[in-house]
């Protein structure tokens, strides 16, 4: 049974690649700086945020630029990936109504495209690491791990959202509100220490907080997150992934009738 799915995936892998390439071409066509924007955007955001928070709001964060960027990069990826995945099935009508394509390709492609952009924004992070003379240890080489956790988690959430959007279009609008709130519940531009003790549970249940802390620990603190942290991250991401997969598989035959 799964053999059939794997064979199918291999057959459509070139399509996955081509769709990502197409999205890249369309996104940067006619823009002068092109792909450079994927590096510039996080840099510019970081400059603005650093200016605001080091002059207007004093905070006790050491190395604010790196602190901010590590949080921003992961959150921006999650937001972009899930947003695009959410709408992917709804707008795939012109294809799936006329030819057979494995439907999961649409949300997965959008998420991988966002991941490609994440890779580019890592270049911005490297610039800032050099610029701020941040001391790195070998733990920084573990950077793929939190990014992979975030990727798997995003796939799960993206799949769930893409299914919901087919049947309830409202979610396309509701989700931007949710993401905005989520931004403030995640310590991207503020230190964890300003959260009152009785509200710390909000952080604990926030999956992105875990991924971002992991990333910050290996880059800024230079230590390897322990077994407990890894277990939490793995459970969250794999759990979301399996949930998304199950929901998607159960509903995918109905999509073509509702879009």
């Amino acid at each position, binding site marked *: 049974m799964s053999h059939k799915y794997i064979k199918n995936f291999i057959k459509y892998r*070139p399509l996955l690649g081509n769709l990502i390439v*197409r999205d890249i*071409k*369309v996104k940067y066509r006619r823009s002068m700086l092109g792909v450079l924007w994927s590096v510039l955007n996080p840099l510019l955001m970081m400059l603005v945020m650093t200016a605001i928070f080091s002059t207007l709001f004093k905070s006790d964060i050491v190395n604010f630029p790196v602190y901010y960027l590590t949080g921003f990069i992961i959150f921006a990826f999650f937001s972009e990936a899930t947003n695009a995945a959410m709408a992917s099935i709804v707008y795939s009508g012109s*294809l799936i109504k006329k*030819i*057979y394509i494995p439907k999961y390709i649409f949300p997965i492609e959008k998420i991988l495209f966002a991941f490609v952009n994440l890779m580019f924004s890592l270049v911005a992070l490297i610039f800032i690491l050099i610029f701020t003379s941040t001391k790195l240890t070998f733990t920084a080489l573990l950077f793929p791990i939190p990014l992979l956790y975030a990727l798997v988690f995003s796939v799960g959430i993206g799949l769930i959202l893409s299914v919901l959007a087919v049947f309830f279009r409202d979610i396309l609008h509701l989700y931007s509100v949710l993401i905005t709130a989520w931004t403030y519940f995640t310590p991207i531009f503020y230190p964890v220490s300003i959260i009152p003790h009785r509200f710390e549970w909000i952080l604990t249940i926030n999956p992105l907080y875990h991924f971002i802390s992991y990333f910050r620990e290996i880059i800024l603190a230079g230590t390897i997150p322990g077994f407990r942290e890894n277990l939490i991250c793995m459970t969250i991401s794999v759990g979301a992934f399996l949930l998304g997969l199950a929901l998607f598989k159960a509903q995918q035959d109905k999509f073509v*009738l509702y879009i």
Partner: protein
Amino acid sequence: MSENAVEIRKVYMRFNLSKEKIDSLKEFFIKFIKRQLMFDEFIALNDITFDIKKGEIFGIVGLNGSGKSTLLKIISSIYKPSLGTVKVEGSIAPLIELGTGFDMDLTARENIFLNGTILGHTTKNIQNKFDEIVDFSELFEFLDVPLKNFSSGMVARLGFAMATITKPDILIVDEILSVGDFLFQKKCEERISNLMRDGTTVIIVSHSITQIERLCNRVMWLEKGKIRMIGPAEQVCNAYKITASTF
């Protein structure tokens, strides 16, 4: 490996015709509370069972709304039948609409690769057939022009070239031969004849009974979702013509 390219067993296709399509949470809850969630049902296909042998030229005729396109979409795995089983052996090239997946902002060259992968071909395969595609569609000078600047005939030629370039095991033709000028139609029929000679199974839906009679071995007549008649082309076409003449 059976001798059948397509096996359809007891297939039903049921559509919900909600009087107003519900696609927001608010409407869903309101109707849920008011218990108005019962949909009108439309049975597009009713207990369909038949086989298509490999290499056969199979025609499907029937009035508009008899279920022909629905059946083709089920065979192409676009729809999943509400009940019943569909077994298909071999690769399918559906000509249900030409240029499926063409992105108008991309050039012809880029679209050939994009469309090719949508149809399930490997990049290497497309590269091998690239010159043949360009030849058939006569678009050599326009390879790097975005498709939005093409005429509809050019798009149709490219679409048809893409769909028929690698010999599919099963070719499905759904009334698209009405697109294009007579030169294009001639080219299409030639290409289809070549495929037939090479043993491709062809499923044709057409309103032109003469075309069906000329090209097909066996024909199935669908009426309101049920098989009214299935058998040798001449037999079914004659019966259809007789019924048509009574209107």
